[in-house]
């Protein structure tokens, strides 16, 4: 034994093996996942395999999705044992809310859609849209499970606000990646004066909405530290757009008990948001995100908004015009639907 040890200990190959064991130990510490993280992953696997089943065109694909869903279901039920019954939505919601996450599931065309997202802020608001409404809201951050529409269409879908069973959800991630992207490019390009923001319509729209913030950060360069500047930019920009999102949420709260189709509801919310708290960036994003609704009324509404607010000629569009046009289209679609 001693002989073997005497042989092994000075061997450089053995040292490398010891090093590998050490690396394995460190890796175990870093990659150790909590039971909660495993539950989230199990739920993710279950929800996404359910989406896969829903999205599948061929029977083979469907069978595969069903198989995976079943396996993840088994895994989830064993992981969740003692914490919640995953068939009981309220129990699941209570469990995740205690961890600062919102869980929701709802039916879309008789199929499930799920949402699991970080809760940044929750509260109650009063608004007039023009109907007076008091609603509970949740500002949601990072999504761990995205709703089916986002799963299917990816980044093309930008939903600013949506209605839950009781609360209205404000989706911060509908703007945050975009703001980060623009911050990155503007920080690098170092604009010296306002005309340097005229590169493209969206940059210009952002500049028009966030003039003070942009001057502060990009032109005057008050922040030397990039990370601080980025944090400030995203937070302040979000504050500028938040009233529009709240107005959208308020409209959703008013419409919550109606039997409106979801895409019609969303159109109404967007128009309300833009008419009460207009801004260039969201107007541009709303106009550009094409709606493929089957509802002719909704299609017509989007089309008219697109035509009347042609943001390509940015300077002709003012906040008043955005507000006025949105209000007019809102009234028009409202009247058409009631007649």
């Amino acid at each position, binding site marked *: 034994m001693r002989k073997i040890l005497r042989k092994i200990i000075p061997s450089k190959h053995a040292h490398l093996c010891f090093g590998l064991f050490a*690396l394995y130990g460190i*890796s175990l510490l870093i*990659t150790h*996942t909590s039971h909660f*993280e495993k539950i989230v*992953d199990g739920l993710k696997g279950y929800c996404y395999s359910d989406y896969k089943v829903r999205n599948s065109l061929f029977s083979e694909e469907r069978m595969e999705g069903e*198989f*995976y869903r079943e396996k993840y279901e088994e895994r989830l039920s064993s992981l969740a044992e003692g914490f919640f019954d995953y068939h009981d939505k309220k129990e699941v919601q209570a469990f995740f809310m205690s961890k600062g996450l919102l869980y929701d599931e709802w039916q879309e065309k008789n199929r499930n859609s799920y949402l699991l997202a970080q809760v940044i802020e929750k509260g109650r608001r009063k608004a007039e849209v023009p109907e007076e409404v008091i609603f509970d809201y949740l500002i949601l951050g990072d999504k761990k499970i995205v709703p089916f529409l986002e799963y299917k269409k990816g980044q093309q879908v930008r939903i600013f606000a949506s209605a839950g069973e009781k609360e209205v959800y404000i989706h911060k991630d509908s703007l945050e990646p975009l703001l980060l992207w623009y911050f990155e490019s503007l920080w690098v390009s170092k604009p010296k004066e306002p005309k340097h923001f005229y590169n493209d319509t969206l940059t210009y729209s952002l500049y028009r909405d966030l003039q003070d913030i942009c001057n502060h950060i990009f032109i005057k360069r008050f922040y030397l530290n990039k990370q601080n500047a980025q944090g400030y930019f995203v937070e302040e920009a979000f504050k500028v757009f938040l009233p529009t999102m709240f107005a959208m949420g308020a409209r959703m709260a008013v419409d919550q008990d109606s039997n409106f189709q979801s895409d019609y509801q969303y159109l109404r919310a967007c128009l309300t948001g833009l008419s009460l708290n207009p801004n260039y960036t969201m107007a541009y994003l709303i106009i550009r995100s094409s709606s493929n609704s089957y509802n002719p009324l909704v299609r017509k509404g989007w089309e008219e908004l697109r035509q009347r607010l042609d943001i390509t000629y940015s300077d002709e569009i003012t906040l008043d015009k955005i507000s006025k046009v949105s209000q007019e289209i809102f009234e028009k679609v409202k009247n058409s639907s009631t007649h």
Partner: protein
Amino acid sequence: MNRNARITPEGVKVIPVGTNLNLKNFPWATIALLFTNWIIFIPFSGNFYWIDFWISQYLFSVPGDQYPWQLITGMFFHADLLHILGNSLFLLVFGPSVEDKLGWKDYLFLYFLTGISANLIHGMMYGFFVREELFIPSLGASGAISGVMGVYLYRCYYSKIKLMIDLFLPFRIKLPAFIILPLWFARDFMGGIDSIRGIGQNVAFWAHVGGFVAGFGACRYLHYEIQARREKLEFVAQTSLQQYGGYGEGIEATKKLLESDPENPELHLNLARAESRSWSSPKGREHYEKAIKLLLEKDPEKAAEVYIEYWKKYFSILEPSYQVRLSLLLSKMSNVNLAVQSLQTLVDSGRPLDIYMEQAHLNLAKIYDQGLGRADLAQHVYEKFLKKFPGSKHRGFVEKMLHSNQKGVNS
């Protein structure tokens, strides 16, 4: 196959197709690794999703929730044909040279060491920066292959990589390994940064980075630079000395090699041939002589062959002690003429009369007498012997031979 397996379609634009290194041995270990990868890939490449599920859970590497064996088993699975083809190509280009330099045992040791390290580092980076992706399985040999590339850079930095710029372009270029491999590493590193920033490409870049760093670092710890420097000199010597012109670099490299290994007959021989290529130079002669002397101890037959080459260029003999042995070898190899010529030159050279000169006379006479049937010439040599070595212990024998020869000549 699984939710989001990290696959590695290596080198989409710049494809390595070979190196300029020659192999001394057949790369058995590399072939065995390739064979294993394909043997595992073929049966599992169908749409057997019920098997895939279990494999992805228990055999792929899943940093957030895995058994230790998954660090190794994950290295042998590939997501699709493009994935395994890409990895096989890279392994086939870099593996054989590394195996050739290291030997199969060290090669396999480093292959597994870097492959496991790659999986661990990939997991650690995700654990630090994108925890929610810790449950995404990763698979493929690319981490270990990056390790092999790291070893290649350390050990074969002087070589050149043959590259195809695109699959459909007809031309190939050769670029130094010390340029192209760091570029690949930089690409992987940037890919890793992107993956942390959420710009996903479904490629486990940190496994590549980890494998490469582990391979390079292991070489450094094992002090492979000593062998690497020597191999570079050998490579330069070998390639440069074969050229018609501009082989000065090869001569310099061989001289440097000789400094650390002065008793290497091959090096002396290479240098002798290079130095005598245009004309018979004293330096060339010196190295020929040294090579022959060293070869006489290690490989006498080759020594005799080299002597024939030397004789053709220099018409010269070595010191009596070596020349006597060489002549015997030559006569054994049926090159009696050269044996006689060289011995005759030695006998007539007027060198100090020692036991080797004694032996040279006797051998020459013997070859004349028995090998060529020239008793008259043998008698002449014997007579010379008696004059030069009157007190020799072989005097009796020589006189006897003379006597019998005289009889033969008279009759």
